[in-house]
């Protein structure tokens, strides 16, 4: 964990680092609180990236349909961006449209209760209202597009199939969850440390407008 501290307080050209190592000790305190909940997981799969540190145990969020991320992403190894298709093009990742689900589930596993519930939705032409799990304050303008560019598409040596590892930076290991729940703090400190470790922009107006 201390290693991570030194990583995050690494020097950048023209001293572009939020925090000097001088404050590493204080960081140690800040982090240790966070990391009591669990050590930061290191992602070897993602080159040129230092994953953000920090964990959070969010309570379970009830959803109209308990969508099993593990089955889709882990067992069937469906790429995250197959369903969350807007992520690479827009600031929002987007919840897959019901039509997309039906694309498969009109034939696949139609006997499962969840699928029947879904079909029901589809038949009376409505889409379920999902409850937002990863929410940031309204004055934070996070864009998925930019982050995917940095870590996936414009990141040589990065295999797009591993995109889930990049998603995991902020969304935790969704592969292991059924209904996603929040496992990263998503606080400003969380963002800032990652930005500074990975040489992200330090301009306030990048995120706050």
């Amino acid at each position, binding site marked *: 964990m201390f290693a991570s501290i030194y990583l995050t307080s690494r020097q950048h050209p023209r001293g572009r680092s939020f925090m000097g190592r001088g404050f590493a000790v204080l960081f140690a305190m800040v982090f240790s609180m966070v990391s009591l909940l669990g050590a930061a997981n290191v992602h070897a799969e993602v080159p040129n990236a230092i994953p953000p540190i920090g964990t959070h145990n969010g309570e379970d969020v009830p959803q109209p349909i308990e969508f099993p991320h593990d089955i889709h992403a882990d067992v069937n190894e469906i790429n995250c961006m197959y369903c969350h298709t807007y992520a690479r093009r827009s600031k929002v990742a987007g919840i897959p449209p019901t039509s997309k689900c039906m694309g498969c589930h009109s034939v696949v596993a139609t006997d499962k209760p969840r699928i029947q519930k879904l079909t029901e939705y589809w038949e009376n032409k409505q889409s379920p209202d999902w409850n937002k799990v990863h929410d940031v304050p309204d004055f934070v303008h996070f864009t998925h597009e930019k982050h995917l560019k940095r870590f996936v598409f414009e990141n040589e040596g990065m295999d797009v199939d591993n995109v889930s590892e990049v998603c995991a930076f902020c969304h935790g290991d969704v592969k292991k969850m059924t209904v996603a729940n929040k496992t990263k703090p998503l606080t400003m400190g969380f963002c*800032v440390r990652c930005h500074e470790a990975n040489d992200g922009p330090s301009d306030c107006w990048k995120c706050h407008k």
Partner: protein
Amino acid sequence: MQTKDINENIAWAKINTDVLRSMENPRMGYWIAVVACLLMVSCAVMAEIYQYQVGMGPGNLNWPHMWDLYIATFVFWIGMSHSGTLLSAILHIIGADWRKPIYRFAEAMTTFSLMTAGLFPIIHLGRVWNMYWVLPYVSDRGIWPNFRSPLIWDAFAITTYLTSSALFLFIGMIPDLAICRDNARGWRQKLYTVLSMGWQGDDRQWRNFRKIYLLMACFLIPLAVSVHSIVSADFAMSIMPGWHITSFPPYFVAGALYSGCAAIITLFIILRYFFRFDEYMTIPILEKTCKLTFAIAMVWSYLTLIEFASVWYGHDPVAKEALVSRFVGPYSPFFWLMLFCGIIVPFALAVERFRRHLPTMFVVSILLNLGMWLERWMIVTPTLATSYYPFAFDVMWPSMVQWAIVFGSFGWFGLLFLIFVKVFPCVSMYEVKEMVFHRRQHNSPEIAKQFHRRASDRQAGDEQPSTGGA
């Protein structure tokens, strides 16, 4: 007519009893005062709660009047705080021992007016709940306050000043607290035992005590000066006509000492009257204070005129307009009242008959303080009303919300002070004892001589000293 600062034949024991008496069984008047202060404070609290919930709008703050009474009153209270430093530190260093009976409450005033002043920058914030963001704490967000901002300088200066002056007050009180400890019963004794920190008046303690007291005095004087010049920087560092004035730092310092002394006179008279301190807070001491005040008043008046002159001859049209608008603009009545209270009224201090007449002095000192408060208002507001940009010219009159909070701040100050006078000795007993002792020595030189002889030819080791009587 009394001419001596103090009657040197007061027995030390009497000093103890007199002062300790003042700390006990409060009378009706005291409780009335407390209730009155509580009421004032509650007005302010209600106003602030309303403002907290609704926003700064109800205070009638508007574009371009972003600051008004809050900042003016803030400067006023900061100014008030300078008196204590003046009396205890400066006069201590130059060895004017007439300060001794009165510096204690002056210092208390310093601390409490700072505690009052400190509230205003917080009150005037649009988002009070985020006020801690001005502190330079290390957060994992990696953001810092903007150290260029004079408001941050204020934060630093005020905390420093508050810490130092509170410590100064406390350190200076330790021997007296020991006295209290030795005479008190019950909770008071417990309290004083803790506070007096095991003071037993042996020579080691006294020796270090003298050193630290002198040293802190030395620290406090430049601090006091810097604090108020920093407060003046809030204005002088801006580019606003009527604010961006070179002579502001000394001007503010002078104004601060001025209002401080005026406040001392007020409290002097009040305490003397209520606690029957006629033997300690004597007319001659009052007179000396008045003379000092008069001198400072003249300095201030001079700087005021210099400010006008410098703007006038500086010949910056915009700055000139701002100045003229103060003289003839919508706020001019208050401006002229300020000049009257600040420059004309103090001449009453020059007249001995007035100086020795307590009621007159009371009224005068109140007027001076009024003048000083108006001065601050007349610095803040007219500039906002007329500045570089004609389209933004505007006249704004503060609403009840602002007035209530300003009003309440006096209650808050009074409350702190009332508590102080009953819990702590508001006259420094040990120093009055010193004072009396010195006067005695001074008036009976032969005793002193004896000491000198015995000290000088000690190896001669001749006859036993004849004991001079105290």
